[in-house]
């Protein structure tokens, strides 16, 4: 009896996933009755809210991609460097101080990062690049990078520390310096764990919503200039839901179609990332 109740609790997580897929799929199918899937996935113009309406999602995907690339440029080197420092260089005492600081950094709400991008990062970037727009991709991607940095650092730290101590000792016995042991023995040994941390963190960056809504603007366009205003998939969903959108209208349906695409992309990345992580944990057990 008790076991059955507890089982239902665990089952709720599966029901949640099924619910997400069901809700998204139902309205997405309604959307595809009016717009073909091909023109949605390959169209270069996204103007669903005004005439002439066009439903090509690529500008939103491009905007998201720009944020992700920018965030990766910030978070991958800094996060990996932090992970290596925490695992291979820092004393236990320093580690004990740095870990909670990173936890705080990870716990700051995304809306606060959005505020920070708007009031601090963009003005600072404006000094370097006077042509920058008030809402721009660069500023948003920098704060998203800072946001996912603790996640990469912490997962890399875990992965590096899982490498057996004997391998390090062998490296030192051959006369390697600490840097050589860290980068040629430990890092290759933890490679899949480090890779998984990048995949999972970038999936988080794709789904990030409030910072990009506040700082990156609401201009869906395909551009490679990070100083311009863009729009991500998540920011579009927020933009529509902030307005008064009647259920069943075309704008309402686009939210589900874009949401479905977002869910599929992050689900694929999370599945891959978690799979690498599980596999990696088995190797050293």
């Amino acid at each position, binding site marked *: 009896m008790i076991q059955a109740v507890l089982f239902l609790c665990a089952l709720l997580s599966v029901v949640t996933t099924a619910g997400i897929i069901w809700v998204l799929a139902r309205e997405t199918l309604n959307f595809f009755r009016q717009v073909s899937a091909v023109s949605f996935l390959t169209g270069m113009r996204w103007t669903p809210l005004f005439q002439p309406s066009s439903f090509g999602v690529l500008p939103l995907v491009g905007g998201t991609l720009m944020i992700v690339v920018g965030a990766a440029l910030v978070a991958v080197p800094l996060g990996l460097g932090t992970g290596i420092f925490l695992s291979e260089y820092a004393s236990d005492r320093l580690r004990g101080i740095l870990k909670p600081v990173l936890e705080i950094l990870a716990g700051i709400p995304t809306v606060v990062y959005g505020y920070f991008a708007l009031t601090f990062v963009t003005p600072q970037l404006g000094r370097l690049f006077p042509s920058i727009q008030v809402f721009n991709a660069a500023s948003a991607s920098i704060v998203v990078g800072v946001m996912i940095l603790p996640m990469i650092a912490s997962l890399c730290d875990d992965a590096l520390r899982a490498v057996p101590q004997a391998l390090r000792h062998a490296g030192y016995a051959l006369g390697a*310096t600490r840097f050589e042991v860290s980068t040629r023995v430990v890092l290759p040994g933890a490679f899949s764990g480090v890779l998984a941390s990048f995949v999972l963190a970038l999936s988080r960056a794709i789904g990030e919503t409030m910072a990009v809504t506040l700082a990156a603007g609401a201009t869906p366009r395909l551009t490679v200039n990070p100083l311009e205003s863009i729009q991500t998939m998540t920011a579009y969903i927020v933009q529509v839901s902030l307005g008064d959108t009647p259920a069943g209208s075309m704008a309402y349906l686009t939210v589900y179609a874009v949401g479905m695409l977002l869910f599929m992309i992050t689900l694929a990345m999370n599945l891959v990332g978690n799979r690498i992580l599980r596999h990696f944990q088995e190797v050293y057990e």
Partner: protein
Amino acid sequence: MTSATAPLGRNLPIRRRLGGLFHAVFLIATFTGVVLLAVLLAEVIQNGIPWLTGSFFTNFPSRFPDQAGIRAALWGTIWLIGLTALFSIPVGVGAAIYLEEYAGRSWFNTLIEINIANLAGTPSIVYGILGLAIFVRWMALGRSVLAGALTMSLLILPVTIIASREALRAVPNSIRLAAFALGATKWQTIRAHVLPAALPGIMTGIILALSRAIGETAPLIMIGALTFVAFTPAGPMDEFTALPIQIFNWASRPQREFYGVAAAGILVLLGVLLTMNAAAIWIRHRSQRSMRW
């Protein structure tokens, strides 16, 4: 390994210097994060302190920055988190007990585990879409605190389950075996021995999960939490606003004065979060001292 073929110590000065250089690089990378946190806090404090007055806590939102306050948002957040805790704690802990204590190794349980790991990484806005479709429209709860809390409960459920499982796993098996040896049933063992031993870890995990819910904005926007509310909720079916929503609203206004109001709101939000984090750390610290296995 090219260095293995070279005579030992030939390039040693260069290798040592390279090692020193990269020690500095890793150190700088680490402290970049620390410095950024400091800059962020300094920026928010500098902008927000002048606006953080007594009337800021008692006023409702206003078109005029100097009359704007967070009373409705603060009460909305308290309602939201209280109800979220009510729903997510029993279900999250229950699921963790099942997975850790009862579940064998079947394909279905593996599926549940993979599913939970993936749900933890699902964007929060997707939960918002789910909440809008299921709770707001299908169950017709409207834009109520209840709909918001149910959405938030689903959002933090994976984190709650994962944290609770870790706490349960840390309880040594000898405790379970000792209870069984005295004739206790499985459920008696769990209720009287395993759960109390795991409680500090579970509480820490729940506090951290709830503090994530406090800062979440996107799902609340999706389910239609309002940005301009001039009343405090009196029941679970009332409409509401919450701290992050209010901050988002102020930060997206064109008038510069509202940046200051937003910063004051952020200070309140961060104050609540830091208090909760400190509580979690304190519980963890205390249990580490009092429990030795």
